[in-house]
């Protein structure tokens, strides 16, 4: 099967006062459909930079990135926006819900940018909120629910355009251990349904939920091993 993600010699450097700083130094990785991967590494290892590139939020300085067969390394901003909208779902550490919108409107927002009509948006947002168990709060504002619930809403938003790939950057970083377990259980469930999940974490017990662990250090991949997933 064609890989969902294939990166070849991916590099990214930043301009700093001290000169060009290479955050990512030629990374090769393949992710096949249905995989559940945890990307680990200490701060400054390049894992977040790598995640931003995978999420089409940033463009690489060198190398190629094939997302679902398409090379996105040299696409323009608007083409990347369309990919972010339809091809993948992104979950952030800080949830990133819009505070003035109801949960339903938050979940429906990606559909607004893909041009769905009002009825479709409402129905799809409802379906996803029900899926993450928050359908009854559809009309509440994000500030009225807990952090764990907000992250569930964010996951519902990532899922609303039915992507085959979910990227999560430290999705449990702002949550307590009990809530973290719940969120990870949700990712495991989505993975069982066939969605490819790639998440960044620096906690071993979070990474333990994944089927494959990739470790970064100083902009390189230093280990890549399959693990036995902990039953949810």
């Amino acid at each position: 099967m064609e890989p969902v993600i294939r990166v070849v010699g991916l590099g990214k450097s930043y301009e700093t006062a001290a000169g060009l700083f290479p955050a990512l130094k030629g990374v090769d990785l393949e992710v096949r459909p249905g995989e559940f991967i945890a990307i680990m590494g200490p701060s400054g290892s390049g894992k977040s930079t790598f995640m931003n590139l995978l999420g089409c939020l940033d463009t690489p300085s060198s190398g190629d990135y094939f997302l679902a067969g398409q090379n996105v390394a040299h696409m323009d901003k608007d083409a990347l926006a369309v990919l972010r909208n339809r091809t993948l779902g992104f979950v952030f550490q800080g949830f990133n819900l819009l505070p003035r919108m109801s949960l339903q409107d938050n979940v429906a927002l990606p559909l607004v940018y893909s041009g769905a009509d009002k009825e479709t948006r409402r129905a799809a947002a409802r379906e996803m909120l029900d899926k993450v168990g928050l359908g009854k709060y559809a009309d509440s504002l994000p500030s009225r629910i807990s952090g764990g619930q907000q992250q569930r809403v964010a996951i519902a938003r990532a899922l609303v355009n039915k992507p085959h790939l979910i990227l999560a950057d430290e999705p449990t970083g702002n949550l307590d251990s009990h809530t973290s377990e719940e969120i990870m259980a949700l990712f495991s469930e989505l993975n069982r349904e066939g969605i490819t999940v790639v998440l960044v974490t620096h906690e071993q017990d979070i990474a333990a939920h994944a089927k494959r662990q990739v470790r970064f250090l100083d902009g390189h991949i230093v280990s890549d091993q399959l693990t036995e997933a902990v039953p949810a």
Partner: protein
Amino acid sequence: MMLKAMLGEAWLAMGANRLRTALTMLGMVIGVGAVVIMMAIGQGAQYAVQQTISTMGSNLFIVLSGSFTAAGVRSGSAGGPTLNVADAEAIAELDGVVNVAPTHQGRRQLVYGSQNWSANVIGTTPPYLEARAWTIASGAAFGDSDVRSATRVALIGKTTAQNLFGDENPVGKTMRIQQNPFIVIGVLGSKGQNLDGNDQDDTVIIPLTTAQRKVFGTPFLGSVRMIMVQADSADNMQRVMDATSSLLRQRHRLREGVPDDFFMRNLAAAAESEAETTRTMSILLGAIASISLLVGGIGIMNIMLVSVTERTREIGIRMAIGARQKDILTQFLLEAVMISFAGCLLGLFLGLAIALAINAFTGMVIVISGTAALVAFAVAATVGIFFGWYPARKAAQLDPIEALRYQ
């Protein structure tokens, strides 16, 4: 992204900080309101002047009997009897002359019953009424035969009629001017004030011959102080005036180098300059009001820039889930345009209300034109787009990762 969804979001964003939105809008409200008021007043003034000019009669000039020098003593204008009725008749023969009326006027005391009143008495011939665009409200005008036989008949203006006759119908009544009885045969239609602010309706018009013999007296029979001439068009004015001048010099046997013994004054030119003055004032008022519109627009830009900075994170989130640059651009542009449109609409109503109030309380003439409202609206929309463009572009060009990191 669909326009309907965007309008809803713009509305939401406007509602999120109501006081700020209202204050931003206030700039536009005042700007558009000022433009509407100033245009209403300026156009009202123009209208009023045009009305006054149209009551004066068009394409008129007057010839005044001039100064003459006797034993080194120079008289002023109209100081001596240098014009006569025959001059007037000769001028009437010139090309492009429509009406010629020799006139003689002065203030005289009128008496009717126990009432008396001082009015401007004009002795003239029937073409005068046509040249000055006088209408007859009731009764009838006098004719050439009245001038020939110097009958004692009079046409009186509305103000004179009210002061002398009160509620009575003046037509057919006999009043006295300088002890001489005159029958009032008609009442003139109202004209209001002239450009100098004098009441044109406080007037008595009588045949020229009667005026000279019974009221004013005259040094030589047939001499007149003033001849009013009406040309057939504004373009012909100067030509007719030149022709009149050379005709009079010839008739008065003035040799080359001898100064004119008459003066000519173009009444149309005076009216034109008055109209020009109000037009200039009107443009000036509009221009000053437009500045406040500009200031209002800058207010919108200012607030939109603040709004973009405040909502950097929101922009980042929107971009992360698939908003394209043009989606963000449209969103912020729409917000600016909505604020300026709403402000414009309120300003329009406020301006109209104030203009109507000015009219109601001061009686000042105002003219409200749809064009002015349309122009104000178009300008407001342009201001919204123009001043909303830069902040919206700034928002659209944000880098998604940096925007997401913004606290």
